[in-house]
């Protein structure tokens, strides 16, 4: 089984406060892992580090067996998509242009019908030229899911992907994830509170186990010059 994403003794800090301590993970192809934990325990920060957006304070991250931290040694495009909890869109552009932005960021050139088919799939039919600003939160979410079907990524790092979606939307999201895992061997790491997704995922990791919140031990801090 190919290991798509692995991290080794990752530690995260917010300012001087430690957030996550010695977190290790191996994510394989066609595997789905749910990250659970209370608010503020570091799910979003962890996903950002794994996506390459933030720096951890210590530890190593390897994506597709090439090192990402501490030194970026990747030579090829990883097709690792990070979905933030607010759907990242260009608000003044129309929907088709947003989809093109998503696919062209990864260097993919696709024919126009594939965009229309993707929009049909997620229930945004006949809205190609509507401005993204006028969409509701759930519709923006569906737009990002449409982009997923077009990009067909190797790794998906999703931060609360069902935020704002109705029950149909949640089923659609699960369908798309399932299809990508089966046909594309996508690996999935989802940070979520939604019970349906947690039950659907193959494994669960509780981030509370990696925080030092309740340990009140005496610490010595080395005074550096």
């Amino acid at each position, binding site marked *: 089984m190919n290991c798509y994403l692995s991290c080794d003794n990752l530690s995260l800090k917010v300012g001087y406060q430690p957030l996550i301590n010695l977190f290790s993970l191996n994510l394989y192809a066609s595997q789905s892992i749910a990250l659970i934990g209370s608010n503020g325990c570091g799910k979003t920060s962890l996903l950002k580090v794994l996506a390459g*957006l933030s720096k951890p304070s210590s530890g190593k991250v390897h994506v597709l067996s090439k090192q990402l931290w501490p030194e970026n040694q990747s030579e*090829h*495009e990883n097709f690792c998509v*990070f979905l933030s909890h607010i759907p990242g*869109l*260009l*608000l003044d552009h129309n929907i088709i242009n947003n989809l093109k932005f*998503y696919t062209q960021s990864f260097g993919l050139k696709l024919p126009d019908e594939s965009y229309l088919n993707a929009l049909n799939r997620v229930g945004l039919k006949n809205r190609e030229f509507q401005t993204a600003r006028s969409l509701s939160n759930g519709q923006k979410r569906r737009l990002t899911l449409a982009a997923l079907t077009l990009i067909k990524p190797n790794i998906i790092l999703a931060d609360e992907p069902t935020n704002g979606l109705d029950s149909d939307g949640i089923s659609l999201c699960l369908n798309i994830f399932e299809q990508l895992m089966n046909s594309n061997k996508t690996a999935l790491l989802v940070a979520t509170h939604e019970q349906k997704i947690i039950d659907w995922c193959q494994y669960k990791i509780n981030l509370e186990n990696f925080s030092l919140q309740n340990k009140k031990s005496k610490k010595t801090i080395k005074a550096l010059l």
Partner: protein
Amino acid sequence: MFKHKNSLKINIKTWFFAFLFINKLSLHSAWVNKTSWFSVFIFAITLLIIFPFGLGIEALKRSDVQIGCYWIINQFVIITSVSRMFSAEQENNALDFLLSSKTPRSAILCGKISFTSMQILSLQIPIIFFWTIFYHVDEKTIFLLLKTIIPVTFLFNIGSSSLGALLTCITAKSLAKEILLPLLFFPLQCGILLASVSISIQVASNSLLGTFSSDAWWTILFMYPIIFTVLGILLSNILLQEQ
């Protein structure tokens, strides 16, 4: 072995395509948000009109005052354009998405610099037109002036945009970014501003702002874009990072 879909190797070709992609994207954002361009243009024309009231019509007969006013208006155009450089992408986390792909960060920065300088140039052309009309710029000198002002403006745009790109990234996460951007921008830009003004004035009134040749000023004009763009490319991984 992993299935790299259309295995995109990160090399010069992809860097160049990413550069063009960012330019196209920013052009599209600017096109969709045309009112922003017009608002800066109207603001610049308003400034053009205010100067005679503040300085008096007699003062405007002098060519160095005319050129000085032009460059002051340029400063305002630059600072408004630079502060909006990343705003379309930062507004809704689209920049996070862009950064999670392997788009080279130096290409993103260079693309933004080149687009901003083009955008400022597109504003400066109508401003020059109105400036020659409102300020009765001498016809004899207009042709000579335009021959110098166009390359000077071009270099000034690139230099200021590259400096502005660096500073926008630096102050993006700060709590006082509206103050910090002008506070850091104007002192660092002094050199290129002085160079541009001096060369323009030398052409217009055939006198020099200093007792030295204009070669030194041209050197400064060339050095600024080069230094700051190179600094931007080298530091792009640190600048466009979350933490």
